[in-house]
């Protein structure tokens, strides 16, 4: 049962050089209590998608449905109500927490904004959340710069959870953390998903992390969706040339791992006033003349496995039309 349904989402920015197509016709759904991983490199639009969902920026087209209701256009009062249901965890815990507020004040703030509970009740809730995310009460009066990255991120997570939302957009939540802390936070997030019945949109560029934590993965390139399927399936059987290149580019911590690297040539095309045709064609080893003319359709290629490529069947030796 999809809790979130996004159709043809668009976001264009006006720049002096023209229209920047940050998000261009992206559609996906997320099922309740599941995690959709949103993967791509910088400039692909994944962070923009996250912010569009939370109405932190205005969209340029498309439809967003949450729990059956259309939330594409909301009044500010409706938006505030949604805040309690949809929250965000940010990448850099150093900059996403006000450096002048203590840990307690940071976690308490959503309660004060929504005027939930008396002072004593709020205190109880804050301590409860600190417990859930695994930080000791002792650091209540500490400031963010006094804590290490892992603790800071837990504070950010507690702040996002204190209103007990249903859906959380996680924007690179572990990218700024050390490997050993990253593992702690990932396990925490999994536990929380179980305990609190959360749905995650997990935005990241780290392929091993997304494979571990997601049920499904959507790969984006220059504002467009290029591939979507079940998480492990993407690594077993990537269909789109970009996904193949991306997977082969990840350095594997294994001396004996075979290195069949697909090195992409050329540079990324500009997302400003993009021409029709596949945006990846310039760097694609399989590109044909059609790829530069016609934009490929994002469609089902296999069961529950979508891709946007003209020659996806030929490249992967699949039967199909």
């Amino acid at each position, binding site marked *: 049962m999809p809790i979130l349904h996004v159709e043809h989402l668009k976001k264009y920015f006006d720049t002096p050089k023209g229209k920047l197509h940050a998000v261009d016709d992206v559609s996906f759904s997320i099922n309740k209590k599941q995690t959709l991983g949103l993967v791509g490199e910088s400039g692909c639009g994944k962070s923009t998608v996250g912010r569009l969902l939370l109405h932190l920026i205005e969209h340029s087209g498309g439809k967003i449905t949450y729990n059956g209701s259309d939330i594409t256009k909301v009044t500010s009062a409706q938006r505030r109500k949604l*805040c309690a249901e949809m929250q965000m965890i940010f990448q850099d815990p150093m900059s996403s927490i006000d450096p*002048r507020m203590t840990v307690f004040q940071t976690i308490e*703030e959503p309660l004060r904004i929504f005027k939930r509970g008396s002072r004593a009740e709020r205190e109880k809730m804050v301590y409860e959340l600190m417990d859930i995310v695994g930080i000791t009460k002792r650091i209540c009066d500490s400031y963010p710069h006094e804590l290490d990255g892992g603790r800071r991120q837990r504070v950010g997570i507690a702040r996002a959870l204190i209103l007990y939302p249903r859906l959380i957009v996680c924007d690179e939540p572990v990218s700024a953390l050390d490997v050993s802390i990253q593992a702690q936070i990932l396990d925490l997030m999994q536990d929380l998903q179980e305990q609190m019945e959360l749905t995650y949109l997990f935005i990241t560029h780290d392929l091993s992390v997304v494979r571990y934590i997601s049920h499904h993965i959507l790969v984006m390139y220059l504002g467009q969706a290029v591939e979507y399927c079940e998480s492990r399936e993407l690594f077993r059987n990537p269909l789109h040339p970009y996904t193949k290149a991306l997977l082969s580019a990840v350095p594997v911590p294994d001396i004996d791992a075979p290195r069949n690297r697909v090195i992409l040539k050329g540079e990324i095309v500009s997302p400003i006033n993009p021409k029709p045709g596949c945006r990846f064609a310039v760097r694609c080893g399989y590109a044909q003349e059609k790829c530069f003319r016609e934009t490929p359709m994002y469609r089902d290629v296999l069961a529950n496995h979508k891709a946007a490529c003209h020659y996806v069947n030929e490249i992967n030796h699949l039967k199909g039309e």
Partner: protein
Amino acid sequence: MMKTEGGGNKARKHRFGDAIFQFTRNRLAVFCLLVLGAIIFCALFADLIAPFGIDEQQISEALQAPSRSHWFGTDNYGRDIFSRVLHGGRVSLLVAIAATLLSTVFGVLFGSVAGYYEGRIGNLIMRIMDIFMAIPSLLMAIVLAASFGAGLNNTILAIAISSIPSFTRVVRAPILAVKQNEYMEASRAIGARTPRLILRHILPNILAIVIVQSTLGVANAIISVASLSFLGLGVQPPTPEWGTMLSAGRAYITKCYWMVTFPGLAIVLSVICLNVLGDALRDALDPRLKM
């Protein structure tokens, strides 16, 4: 750069405590703080400290060089200059601080609005401020004082108005920077609305800059008061004020240097101390210099 990993139990609790520590290591700044403290103390308790009244004329003692009974000498009316400098300090400092307070409040107000609402409102405010800044502030103070008339309150008003534009400008820049910080976006994500964002998140983060600017503002205001009074536009006699004393002593400058020197020294000393203080505060509160 050192990163404090680990529980952080050894780190200090309060950021301001940290700033105070940094400040106390600057010996010049501490010295200036003490000197300034002494000046303020004398100004406050002028009544008790001053050996003579401000208008106690003893013509027989007129134009006496500094001596044991009159530490700073006497003026042309036989008034004790030391007592007048003490009382004058009260007026100068009062006007300077009051004017700076006013310009801080309004400067922060206009700067916040201009900085937060960047579009047309912001532009309008900044262009108005630009117009005012095109006029040298002292000249503006003179014009305002001349039109309002002389007197203490009008002087305060004139100086305050002439300082608001630079304050606005100084406040707006860090607000533009702070606005970009991710925690602003995070606060919007948890539902905070504009008033809360400005009051709770932006202003505390520009506090340091405002403090520094105010400190330097008081120094400038002292000079402005003295200048206005020197020109006869500010405080009126018999109220003693460092500027008026300078003006009065002009005629006697070659023979009786003490009439001009001591009020002049008082101005110089206060302004230097405030400037050093302002710089030291800026260094102490600058987070980038923190280890």
